[in-house]
């Protein structure tokens, strides 16, 4: 079954050891990625969206590890791979662009040197071929005078330029999957527009699949085919962009959309989500969102809801949908 997917994450659990105890950052996340798809993962800080992405690449911090679950790339389980196999996978099959272009480049090496490293490691190119490929990649991401740029150091470039270099580096070996972790959060809005435009163009040109991790609902709405909404290390809702934005079925998603200014009626009062973000050290027994949910029922406090299909393009993990379905079927009233 899973052979047809480019990437299939199955029941992923990732946790971190800390001084205050074990933090379950990701709790049973499953999703599939098709070739050429743009998948958005949206959530607040601490929702586990970045950790999910890092788990796929196996670049977790030293105190973090994948506890259980499978990550299948073209049907092969990455969790059983050795470090050597993984370093082949990173860059060649799947690469990542980080949030902060100021810190993710090495300040003491030139752009050409860092870009060349990726090319030398993953291809058979040597010497001048490496340099030519680096220049070609910089041209692809819209950097002018690439011959001059490859001799420069990161501090000589602006934030937008550095992010272009990061994208060039990620795409140098033509990976099947590009993971972008908050790629435009550190950038100004006009520069963000440039980078998003570039990513859309490159995706069309090269046809790779993209996993876009962000907290910005605007960026998600603009870019993604499918969206996953995460809260407290779990997926609470998933579906096509139109389903998530126009027909949200999880109370958290509904709350998020109510708490941002409405473009059609800017002066409408915002409806905030009550309470504070979840403490991952102390997860509730039931639904992670139950303490902040206005519509929480008794069962929400004690039992975690399973994902339920709303329609073929949309699934949500919320007891309210279960109740509504049972009521529609005329079954038990007391869920």
């Amino acid at each position, binding site marked *: 079954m899973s052979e047809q997917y480019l990437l299939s994450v199955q029941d992923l659990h990732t946790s971190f050891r800390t001084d205050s105890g074990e933090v379950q950052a990701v709790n049973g996340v499953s999703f599939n990625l098709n070739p050429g798809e743009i998948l958005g993962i949206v959530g607040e800080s601490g929702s586990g969206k970045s950790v999910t992405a890092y788990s796929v690449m196996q670049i977790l911090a030293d105190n973090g590890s994948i506890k259980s679950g499978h990550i299948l790339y073209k049907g092969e389980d990455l969790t059983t791979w050795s470090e050597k196999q993984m370093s082949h996978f990173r860059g060649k099959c799947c690469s990542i662009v980080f949030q902060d272009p100021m810190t993710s480049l090495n300040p003491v090496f030139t752009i050409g040197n860092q870009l060349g490293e990726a090319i030398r490691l993953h291809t058979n190119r040597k010497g001048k071929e490496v340099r030519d490929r680096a220049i070609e990649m910089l041209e692809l991401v819209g950097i002018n005078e690439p011959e001059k740029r490859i001799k420069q150091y990161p501090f000589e470039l602006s934030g937008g330029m550095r992010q272009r270099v990061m994208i060039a580096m990620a795409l140098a070996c033509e990976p099947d999957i590009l993971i972008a972790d908050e790629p435009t959060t550190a950038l100004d809005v006009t520069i963000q527009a440039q980078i998003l435009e570039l990513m859309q163009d490159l995706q069309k040109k090269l046809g790779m699949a993209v996993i876009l991790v962000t907290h910005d609902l605007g960026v998600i*709405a603009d870019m993604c085919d499918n969206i996953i909404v995460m809260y407290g290390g779990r997926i609470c809702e998933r579906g096509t962009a139109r389903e998530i934005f126009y027909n949200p079925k999880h109370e958290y998603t509904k709350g998020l959309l109510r708490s941002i200014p409405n473009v059609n009626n*800017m002066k409408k009062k915002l409806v905030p989500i009550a309470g504070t973000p979840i403490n991952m050290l102390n997860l509730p027994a039931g639904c992670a969102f139950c303490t902040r949910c206005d519509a929480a029922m008794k069962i929400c406090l004690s039992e975690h809801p399973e994902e339920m299909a709303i329609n073929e393009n949309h699934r949500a993990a919320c007891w309210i949908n279960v109740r509504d379905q049972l009521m529609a079927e005329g079954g038990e009233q007391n869920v």
Partner: protein
Amino acid sequence: MSDILLEVKNLKQYFPVRAGLMKTIPLKAVDDVSFTIGRGETLGLVGESGCGKTTVGRTILRLYEPTGGEVIFDGESVTAKNITHMRKQMQMVFQDPYSSLDPRMTVEDIIGEPLDVHKLYSNRKERREKILELMATVGLNAEHATRYAHEFSGGQRQRIGIARALAVNPKFIVCDEPVSALDVSIQAQVINMFEELQEKLGVAYLFIAHDLLVVRHISKRIAVMYLGKIVEVADSDELNENPQHPYTQSLLSAVPIPDPDITRARQRIVLEGDVPSPLNMPTGCSFRTRCRYATEQCAKECPALTDRGDGHFVACWNK
């Protein structure tokens, strides 16, 4: 009593930057900025990082000594001499709720400090009562008073910062990116609180932010800054529906809108290149290097902010 609370006239703030052994050159962070804010009004100030919007806010409160120009608050010119007195009426809420609160002070002392400075109580009991009242206003519990800032989440810390600003009962608050460090679900709580406080206390805001959607929501009027200058000021809806300056047009089109159908249907005006260095500004209009409509005139002379009707001011040679 006039309707205008704050008037900023030709405000200039240049910072000296070393350019060689003996030489310094001025970095024009704010260059000839003028605007007014009415009583109980919110003026939004937007622009990209480095455009000088935070410096405007800080210079109004004399956290920096201005290079030139004048700030008139409630008919009185703000000077270095009367600033302590003026800060009884003008306050500031800072961007980063993690670094703007002293980690060694309890919440009670943080909120009480402005009361101490301006001697706004006659005995300990009154001080304590005032602090608890302020904490209730911003939605903090009385038992939080003895805790330290690190024990609070970002949203709660921002509430402490707001309570501190409100302590002197000001007429005007500079809000410098007050919600950008907060999660989306918490942002709405804080934005609603700013709005409720304005309704209740009639306080005016200069709301500085880079998130245009938030600014459009909270502001009556919006001023757009680019490289130290205001390029456009208009009513919030007017600015959105009828942006006149090419920079405003591209800025508005670049904001991703959280609505798939709308955001995918619109045409993005992508600006070429980066913002020029403020140390090496282009001659004439500072936006001309990235402008689609730039002409020879733009290179020669800097356009002044002129009224195009109904309080819509634009600084552009193109009509």
